C-alpha cells in the first residue's frame, strides 16, 4: 500500500497540503480530483518523493520514503509528470528505453515492444521525439514510465500519473485509461490526477476530492462523486447521472449566466 498519513507541506506559513491522508491500494486506480490551485500537483510531488513533507509520513509497502535510496524508490514506483521537454535529439525508442535504465530486466527488448505497442507508439520508434505531436509525445512518455514497472513481480508497485491524457484526443484518452486498467491485474496501484470527471467516474475505483490543500472526501467513486460533493469542491453546478451499479456514470455541467462561480458560492452559503 502507498500510504500517506497526515502529511503537511507549507511554503512560508501558507499550507499547500494540509494534513492530508491518502491510501492507494495495489490493483486499484485512485483519482485525485479538485479545482486548480487545490494542491494536487504538490501532493503528487510529495507522494513521488520529489518534495519531502514538513510533517507526516509517507510509506511504500510499509517502508518510509524518507531514507529510501533513489534507486529503490524507482523500483517501487514510476511517475509521469504533466510535461517533459527533451533537450537533445533522442529517438522515441531511446526515450522509452530509459525507463529500464536501472531495473535491468532479462528481456528488455520484449518489454520495450510491449509498452510501445500498448501505447500505440511502436510505429514511431525510430522518429525523433522532438518531431512528434503533443499526444504522441505524451504516449511515448507513458511508454517510458510503463517500462519501469512492466516486468511482472510479486511485490506491489505504484504508478503516479499527473493528467496522463491532457494532450490526447477522445479515443486515445479511453485507450490510455484501458491500458491503465490492465495494470491493475499486475498488482500495481495507480494514482492519477484527472481533470475529466467522466473519465474519473468510469475508470477509477476510488476518488479523492482535494480543495485548498485538504482532502474533503475519499472513498469509492460512487460514494464520493455525488453532485453535492463535486459542487462543493468545484463551486459550480454539476449533475451526476448514475444508472445503477455497473452502468456508466454521466457527469455534466452547463453554461449558466445566473450561476457564475462566485454567485454560486453565495447560494451555497
Amino acid at each position, binding site marked *: 500500500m502507498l500510504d500517506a498519513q497526515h502529511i503537511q507541506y507549507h511554503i512560508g506559513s501558507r499550507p499547500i497540503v494540509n494534513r492530508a491522508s491518502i491510501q492507494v491500494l495495489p490493483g486499484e486506480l485512485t483519482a485525485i480530483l479538485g479545482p486548480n490551485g487545490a494542491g494536487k500537483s504538490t501532493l503528487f510531488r510529495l507522494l*513521488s*518523493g*520529489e518534495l519531502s513533507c514538513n510533517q507526516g509520513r509517507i510509506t511504500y509497502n510499509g517502508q518510509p520514503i524518507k531514507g529510501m535510496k*533513489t*534507486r529503490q*524508490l*524507482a*523500483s517501487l*514506483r*514510476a*511517475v509521469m*509528470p504533466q510535461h*517533459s*521537454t*527533451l*533537450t*537533445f*535529439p*533522442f*529517438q522515441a*525508442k*531511446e*526515450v522509452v*528505453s*530509459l*525507463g*529500464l*535504465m*536501472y531495473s535491468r530486466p532479462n528481456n*528488455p*527488448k520484449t518489454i*520495450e*515492444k510491449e509498452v510501445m505497442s500498448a501505447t500505440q507508439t511502436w510505429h514511431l*520508434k525510430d522518429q*525523433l*521525439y*522532438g*518531431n512528434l505531436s503533443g499526444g504522441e509525445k505524451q504516449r511515448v512518455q507513458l511508454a*517510458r*514510465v510503463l517500462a*519501469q514497472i512492466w516486468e511482472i513481480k510479486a511485490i506491489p508497485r505504484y504508478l503516479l500519473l499527473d493528467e496522463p491524457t491532457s494532450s490526447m484526443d477522445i479515443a486515445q484518452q479511453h485507450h490510455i485509461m484501458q491500458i491503465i486498467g490492465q495494470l491493475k491485474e499486475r498488482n500495481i496501484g495507480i494514482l492519477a490526477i484527472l481533470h475529466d470527471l467522466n473519465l474519473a467516474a468510469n475508470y477509477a475505483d476510488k476518488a479523492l476530492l482535494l480543495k485548498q490543500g485538504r482532502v474533503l472526501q475519499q472513498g469509492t467513486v460512487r460514494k464520493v462523486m455525488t453532485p453535492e460533493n463535486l459542487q462543493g469542491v468545484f463551486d459550480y453546478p454539476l449533475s451526476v447521472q448514475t444508472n445503477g451499479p455497473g452502468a456508466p456514470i454521466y457527469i455534466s455541467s452547463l453554461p449558466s449566466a445566473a450561476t457564475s462561480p462566485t454567485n454560486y458560492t453565495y447560494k451555497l452559503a
Partner: protein
Amino acid sequence: MIQNLSYSKTAQQSLVLAVLGIGLVLLGLLSITIGAFPIPFGHAVSILLSQLGIDSGTFTEQEANVLWQIRLPRILLAILVGGGLGVSGAALQGLFRNPLVEPGLIGVSSGGALFAVIFIVFGSSFPWLGRIFGSFSLPLVAFIGGLINVMLVYKMANQGGKTDISLLILAGVALTALSGALIGLAIFYADEASLRNFTFWSLGDVGGANWDKVKIAFILILFPALLIINQFRNLNALAIGENEAFHMGVDVQRVKYIVLFMSALVVGVGVSMTGTIGFVGLIVPHLLRLSFGADHRLVLPGAFLLGAFLLNGADLLARTVVMPAELPIGIITAILGSPFFIWLILHVKKLNS
C-alpha cells in the same frame, strides 16, 4: 529491427568509435612526420619501434630527438587536452540540458586561467604549495579556479531544476570578463620573472609540451574523463528532466557533483598547460549528435576521440601554415568555432525539441 537496450553499445556506435579511434591514430602518425623538420614516415615508425626494443630500420639521432622530445609529447598533450575539452563540453551540455554550454563560454576556462595566473605571479608567496604538490600545483590551482566559476554559473542559471539559457550565457560572460580583469590586475603586480613566466604560459599552447606535462595530464585528465564517460546513462536520463531522472532512480545531485567537479578538473588542468582553447567543447558534441543521435553512450566517448582529433588537426595547422613559425592554436579553434557558435545560436530553437 528492435533497438538494443542492454546498455552495451550498438553495432553502429561501436563502429563510429572505432573509426574515430583509427582516425586519431592515423592523424597522430601523420602529425609526427610533418613539421618544420620533416621526418620520413618509415623513419618515424622505426624510431617508435626502437623505443619498444625492436630494431627495424635506420634514422638519424636528430630525427629521434625531435620525434621523442618534441613531437610525441606535443601530440599526446593535444590528444589529452582536446579529448578532455570535448568530453567535458558534452557532459556539461548534458547536465545543463543546453546545447550552448561550453567550458570556455560558461567561465570554467577563464576561472582556471585566472587561478593559473595568480599562481604564476604570486606562487612564490606560497612556497608550501610547491613543496606539497610539486609540478601538480599549477594544474590543481587552475582546477580550483575552474570549479569556483562553474559552481557560480550553475547556481545563478539553475532555478528549480531548470537552466535559464540567457542567465547561463550572461553569467558566463560576466565571470569571464571579471576573470579577465583580475588576470590583468595580477599581471599589473607581477615582477619581471613572473611576467616572463606568464608570457610563456599564455603563449604556451601545446608547443610547450614535455613528458612531465603529459604524465600529469594523463593522470588528471584521462581519469576524470573516464569518470565522466561512465555517467552516460544518468546523463541520458537527465535529458528528459531532473525530476524525471529522479523518478527513474538517478541520484541527480551526485551526478551533478561528479560532472561539475570532473569537468572543472579536466578543463582547469588543460588550461594550466595550454592556455585557453575555445570552442572544441562546443563543436565536438554537436557534430556527434547531429550525425549519430544524442545517446551519451556514444556522445561522451566519441567527444573525447573527436576532441582529440580536432585539437591535433588544429595543432597540425597551427604549426604548418606559417612554417617555420607557429600560430597559437587558440586562434585556429576560434576561427573554426565562432561561425559555428553563431550558426548554433540561430538554430538552437530547432535543436531543442
